[in-house]
């Protein structure tokens, strides 16, 4: 079936080729430490590298697939998805600085607000409730050693 290649297939094919090349390169690095040509940590990397490059070329540039229905989100949803990633990565930084409990509380608060558009009070209430439950289960009962945060560690708390 002829036609334009879907952008998604080209990207995936490209990812396959790049990963294959990286695998070959890493395999070549390990080749000197081999026991023999077919015994060593390079073998799997050479095999996967070659296969990924061949499949990447086929999938990205040779084969034509029937068109797939890619769900098109509206602008608001696209914004929410992208915002979610920002929130998640911000959570990692906040947790590193202020510890898990405050990080999780803020994460939940912002997500309740973004996903549910609840009032500030409701968001606060929900996030405190869920964080308290998680704290009780995982920190108080199970004693999971979460980070208390760089700031509190520096302050000796």
């Amino acid at each position, binding site marked *: 079936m002829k036609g334009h290649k879907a952008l998604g297939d080209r990207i995936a094919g490209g990812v396959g080729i790049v990963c294959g090349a990286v695998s070959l390169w890493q395999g070549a690095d*390990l080749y000197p430490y081999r026991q023999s040509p077919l015994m060593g940590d390079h073998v799997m990397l050479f095999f996967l590298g070659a296969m990924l490059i061949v499949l*990447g070329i086929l*999938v990205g540039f040779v084969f034509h697939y029937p068109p797939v229905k890619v*769900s098109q989100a509206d602008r608001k*949803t696209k914004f929410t998805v992208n915002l979610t990633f920002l929130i*998640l990565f911000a959570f990692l930084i906040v947790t590193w600085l202020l510890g898990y409990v405050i990080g999780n509380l803020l994460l939940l608060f912002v*997500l309740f607000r973004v996903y549910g*558009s609840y009032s500030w009070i409701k968001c606060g209430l929900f996030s405190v409730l*869920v964080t308290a439950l998680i704290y009780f*289960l995982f920190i108080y009962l199970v004693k999971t050693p979460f980070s208390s945060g760089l700031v509190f560690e520096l302050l000796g708390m």
Partner: protein
Amino acid sequence: METLSYLIDGFASAVSPMNLLMCAVGVLLGTAVGVLPGLGPSSAIAILLPVTATLEPMQSIIMLAGIYYGAQYGGSTTSILLNIPGEAASIVTCLDGYPMAKQGRGGPALGIAAIGSFIAGTIGVLGLTFFAPIFARSALAFGPPEYTMLMVMSFSIVMSFAGNSLSKGILIGFLGMLLACVGPGWVSGYLRFCWNVDQLTGGLNLVPIVIGLMAISEVLKGLEEQSVAISTEQVGSVFPSKADLKRSAGPIIRGTFIGFILGLLPGCAPTVSTFLSYDLEKKVSKHPEKFGTGMIEGVASPESANNANGVAGFIPLFSFGIPTSAAMAILLVGLTMFGIQPGPTLFTSGGEFVWTVIASMFIGNLLLIILNLPLVGIWAKITKVPYGILAPVIVSLCVIGSYTIRNSMFDVLITFLFGYIGYVMRKHQWPIVPLIIGFILGPIFERNFITSMSMSNESFLIFIQRPISAGILVLTVVLLILSHFLKKRTASRVKASVDSSMDLPDDVS
């Protein structure tokens, strides 16, 4: 007799109050998450995996078995009440289940789904009890060449999860294998793909990857879909009438048989067994024209087939360590998380443990029917919990789950990254499961291949000179042809049977 005595010991251990409680909690949690629209059993298990991480290994595995059953049943509930199949295997349940719900007979449909699942599950677990140790004993004769070929055969599973293209599925499967290479090499111990990043020197853990790919991506996809709850207000009594039970008896048995046999074959997805069983019921029915309008046989048979298929999947999982479905792959992750390595030695090294788990599967199946039938009204209500409340809680659970594996925020970062990758893959209908399967099989393949090469002075003939290894190779070819045929046939049936208004999951091929 020996098996029976082990099983009785397993029951003695499984019925301890704490284990029973864990099993019940697992069933309830699994159902509660499984009924959420759009979340299939595999996603439900991935989300709940972290909850089990906090318990003792035995209790965790028992809870995991309960979650598995609960999530399977929860998936049926959304198919029947909302016409939203959580995964491809449940599409066929919608065909007659949803029309029954619209006629005010959602209760009997849910009831027969539970009864069918219970019977199929019980027969399936009986099969597991007697066949798995036999397979495992025969697998003890396997050496590295046989295991290499077994991994090649297992990789054919990718075919059933490849979605609309086998080449894409294989590409993703190889990417999964490549991810598993991160960390110290098996032969020399030199680091691969670590690039001076300390956190990578121990390798990547599969749990954060699975949680990201299955759960976080599901949350993001849910943002786009915002499923509208159209659940029927009146589900009616969940107890089927005598006439319903009489009509369902044959379909349940036939569905169980088809599901169990196909569940043993790597590469035959549960979708194939549910559609084959539905097809068979249509053929043996005196009123095939009424299928699709609310025939209880159309619910009983595929639900039984789906459950029997799932339980049969435990046989290759326990005997060879091969996952035959997405849910099995995640369960395997759970088992390895608690230090259990499924495979031929499981029955000898983890004797008491494995028999307790098998016994708890019997109990989980029973608890499912005891707990879920009276609570069906609550499950119907859960489908209406606003997404704005569910999604943040799921994200928070995912964070906990990926962190607790190694107490590392780096794993949380991995979860987020794979969450985004999973979201993009879902959006473009790229199959996710091959990546997980590749990650699981890759290291086993590498280790056995290199040992085989060492045994044979680097001759590939070793794979065809040894009878078992050659036999597995031939079986692989046969299975590939068979599953290709069955898959093609099923795909055309799906297209022919599925109503355009139905909300289909991504893995429909």
